[in-house]
């Protein structure tokens, strides 16, 4: 017992902890959707109530699930800033998640927090160029992305992760009614690289490559990513229009 906890008022000595009867629930059958070459991601905005805007994304073809929350604009202390300060935090919240057999895998399969810092920084740079920061003086905008579920195979697919994060943050910002200049998006070549675009692919605002190989043609890579970006943007805008 804590030293400062002397004479603490405790409950009655004959108290018994509350016990709940086990809930008997039929395990719901999850019908395996016939794996098309491309399943559509599931998106939802405004799930969380204590933040200003939020989104939930489940990528269609693997088990990647993300929750994004957007806080702010809120006051920051310190010296005067005429623009908002944007922060992006990418977190893996399943490091100690229970497996089906009850054991925990202590995050063995997942990237270290250092990797996530790099990814956070990359995402921050993208959204710095899109969010209308000068409309929010003296304030901070905080964005948190939580990886809720992922296949271990996914974690090595950083381009895919970045693409989904970008979509999630974008929907979170739209939900928060934060002013953004465009629907920014990331186009990817799986496991290889990703490029972020604005203005229907006319401008690039981010480039991430997994391996550095000289002989690759950058223009070809960007072209491939742009195609993927346009597909992705169509998904996002059709979701936003249908919502």
């Amino acid at each position: 017992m804590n030293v400062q906890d002397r004479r603490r008022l405790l409950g009655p000595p004959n108290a018994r902890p509350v016990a709940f009867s086990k809930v008997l629930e039929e395990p719901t059958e999850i019908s395996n959707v016939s794996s098309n070459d491309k399943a559509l991601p599931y998106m939802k905005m405004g799930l969380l109530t204590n933040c200003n805007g939020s989104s939930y994304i489940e990528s269609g073809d693997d088990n990647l699930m993300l929750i994004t929350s957007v806080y702010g604009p809120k006051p920051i202390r310190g010296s005067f800033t005429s623009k908002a300060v944007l922060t992006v935090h990418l977190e893996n919240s399943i490091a100690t998640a229970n497996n089906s057999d009850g054991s925990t895998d202590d995050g063995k399969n997942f990237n270290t927090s250092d990797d996530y810092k790099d990814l956070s920084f990359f995402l921050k740079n993208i959204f710095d160029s899109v969010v209308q920061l000068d409309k929010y003086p003296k304030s901070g905008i905080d964005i948190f992305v939580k990886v809720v579920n992922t296949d271990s195979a996914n974690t090595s697919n950083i381009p895919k992760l970045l693409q989904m994060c970008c979509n999630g943050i974008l929907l979170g910002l739209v939900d928060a009614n934060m002013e953004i200049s465009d629907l920014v998006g990331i186009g990817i070549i799986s496991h290889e690289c990703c490029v972020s675009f604005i203005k229907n692919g006319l401008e690039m605002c981010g480039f991430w490559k997994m391996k550095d190989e000289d002989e690759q043609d950058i223009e070809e890579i960007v072209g491939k990513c742009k195609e993927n970006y346009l597909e992705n943007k169509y998904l996002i805008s059709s979701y936003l229009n249908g919502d």
Partner: protein
Amino acid sequence: MLDSSRYPEKVLPGDLISPLYDIDNNNEKIVYSFHPGPGTTITKYKINSQEHKVLIATLKGFVHFEELVKTNIDSEGKESEKKEENDTENKNKLADELEAPEVNSDRIIKKYTVIVSKEKKNEMMQDPNLQEGQQDEVNNDFANNLPKEGDIVLCKVTRISAQKANVEILVVENNNCLKDSGVGTNGAGVSSVTGGSGAVTFFISQASSDLGETFKGVIRSQDVRATERDSVKITECFKPGDIVRCKVLSLGDGNNYYLTTAKNYLGVVFAKSLGGAGELMYAIDWKTMIAPTSQVLEQRKCAKPF
């Protein structure tokens, strides 16, 4: 009248709304000039390898055009796209020509503010009997409810000294509170504890009050009232805990907004007698408040209640 069906009704961020200037379909002498309001911004757009300035949406929602009552005349009669250079000239003329539009002018410029908001047009209709700034409906659409110059804000006095009164800004008048209570945290707002700009700078132990994360402001003694400004005694104007209606003078420094109460309608709106221990008081003149049952009189710089 502007034919808004020529422009998109529903937009997403990044969508094109309109050029900065446009000509009326029926009457070529009418030029529409569009100004960015909340939810829109100006950007450059390339059409046929020529750059044009256009308005794009920055929010998801419906486009509204609100006419600015001032009509502006341009006697040069140049092409509408080239009007921009004349803008500064026009502004100078504006003052003289506000009242009576000149008859010999070639073109009539109609100014519109373009707004993107969540609500559809019909739902935005407001009571015409209410004057500007009196609308009882608060527009919940914008996250941008930060105090800016000229805004009326409600504040709580946290500390007073001989030179100034420190306050915390609760809310900008006629603006909503954010869901996460970025401005005007009422104690229930949840801060993002795992990090972010709030967590770096905000410690509950260092918070000056129970308000949480709020913008701070300062009312300097010379800004309390418009007359006899150098003989103001702060203790006769405010007490800690008072709710004060202020106007924002400037964004101030990193810590404080600079506020003023030098108007009849600005000053203390709610105050309790006896340093907060007593009852709610009512203003009987601009510098006295009275507690209704105990008859305690206290000095405040009161806001005109009506």
